[in-house]
């Protein structure tokens, strides 16, 4: 099966395309999770010719639960700090395989999604930084910064603002 990219020509077309969900209901995000809403729109904007990479974080834990998934796009997990590496590996492989005729030549979006712990901490920053030096590959890295390691109990990350209360904050308890 090959996927054809449909270009919107009219506003109606656009609305029709916008109505297609690629990140759909049935995930475990908390009520009213704005990151889930953002992902839903990222997926719509990217369209079907997309590979999504999710680093460890709540947007990975909550959106896929083994044997079920909320993704109608090819999706793969990468290690906590692996977003930069994963997008480079994926984009490089697509480039190599297309140039060598092992895959049909088409535009495939590569999107890596990580939280602040994944991309701003945990060695992730260095892998993102390295990824940015590989300018011949096309990819998008999306960091949703909720200023904490929310999924693992709201611990501090380097993005936590000064004075914010996290479960790693050394506050006096009495």
């Amino acid at each position: 099966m090959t996927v054809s990219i449909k270009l919107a020509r009219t506003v109606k077309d656009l609305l029709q395309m916008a109505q297609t969900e690629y990140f759909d209901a049935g995930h475990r995000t908390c009520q009213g999770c704005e990151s889930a809403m953002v992902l839903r729109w990222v997926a719509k904007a990217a369209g079907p010719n997309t590979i999504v990479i999710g680093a460890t974080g709540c947007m990975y834990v909550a959106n896929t639960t083994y044997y079920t998934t909320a993704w109608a796009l090819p999706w793969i997990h990468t290690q906590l700090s692996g977003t930069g590496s994963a997008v480079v590996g994926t984009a490089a492989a697509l480039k190599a395989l297309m140039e060598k005729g092992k895959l049909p030549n088409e535009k495939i979006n590569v999107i890596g999604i990580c939280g602040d712990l994944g991309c701003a901490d945990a060695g992730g920053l260095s892998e993102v930084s390295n990824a940015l030096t590989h300018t011949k590959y096309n990819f998008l890295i999306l960091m949703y910064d909720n200023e904490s390691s929310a999924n693992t109990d709201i611990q501090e990350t380097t993005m936590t603002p000064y004075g914010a209360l996290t479960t790693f904050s050394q506050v006096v308890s009495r």
Partner: protein
Amino acid sequence: MEVVGTGTDAVAYALMLADIDVTSAYPIRPYGGVMQTVARLIADGYLKAEYIVAAHEHDQFEIVKHASAVGARTFVGSSGVGWLLAIEAIVAISTDRYPVVALIGNRALDDPPGAYGVEHNDALMVRDVGWLLVWVDTAQEALDTTLIAYRVAEDPRVMLPVGISMDGAFLTHSEHVFKIPPKSKVQKFLPPYDLGNRKLHPSNVISVAPQVNEDWVTEIRKQMDEAMKNARKVIEEAYRDFAKIFGRDYGNPFVEPYMVEDADVVMVGMGTVSKPIKEAVRRLRAKGERVGFLRIRWFRPFPTDDIIRYLSGVKVVAVVDRDYSFGSPFDGGAVFTEIRSALYEAEHRPLMMNFIGGLGGREITYNDAINMFNMALDAARKGRVEQRVIWYGVRE
């Protein structure tokens, strides 16, 4: 075509023949030579592949994991603590079942750093997590084993990564004469990499490695257990086909027996330690001593049947470990412990000795091998082992 080159050169030529698509590099001795040769092969137009310089080893291994996921044949490698820095990605490669092939230029672990020489503990760190592990002995074997590794790893019955271990300095940096086979033969031997329904592509919408709970992990690990067991058969098939297509027959794929028939004392080892030991076997045989040598090629899956076949009935088995396993059942090396365990089921259990030596690249010479054999022969004559584990050559 016959050429002169190092062990890592030989692997690089094999990568050219296997037509890898993506590789990722990060410098560390002694594995690094392979990436220098690959870079030259790409620059000279012999190989078309994406060559990605990584931020560090974790980056490096994560890159190839994801390249492998979309259907690229990949190569990666490291040494010593570099390999261990990547361990998170290394484990994810095997649990995600991507047939990545890696070269481990065996190197002593830090600290203290700077011992570029061989020690097998780096590769052995992953012996329990679903990596196939093989030790090579010559540049030719390195080239051939790399091709075999891709064939075994990518077999749908296996789909596990392979780590090719090569003794640092002794093989990575020593020059050998070896033959480069024609590409046409390689194409006959090695089918294209096909992930089947696991290929990550918009035409095949799957989710890989979602968050998992206790309802599933046992089943996922059991699949890996089965794949590792299947690997024994697949390795045998691969060596058989290799002999047919390339005309080079390695005999038993898992171990290399050297004059073990009717031997009273058999030394066991992995990697280049074979050279001095084989020489010692020849000289001692000439003097009428019944000694032999068994070189283990595949450590994972472990060749239990072959170990029993060749070692049951021998009087003394002396294992040379270029590694350590502190606090293990007999405070010996990892290979010793595994062989001892394998022989538990044997009809005739031999006496067992363990030499821990050659650490950090210290050479095990012909004279050392003779010494070790003499100690083992002595035990054979007496019918008992006085000291089970000997730190060979340690300064008191």
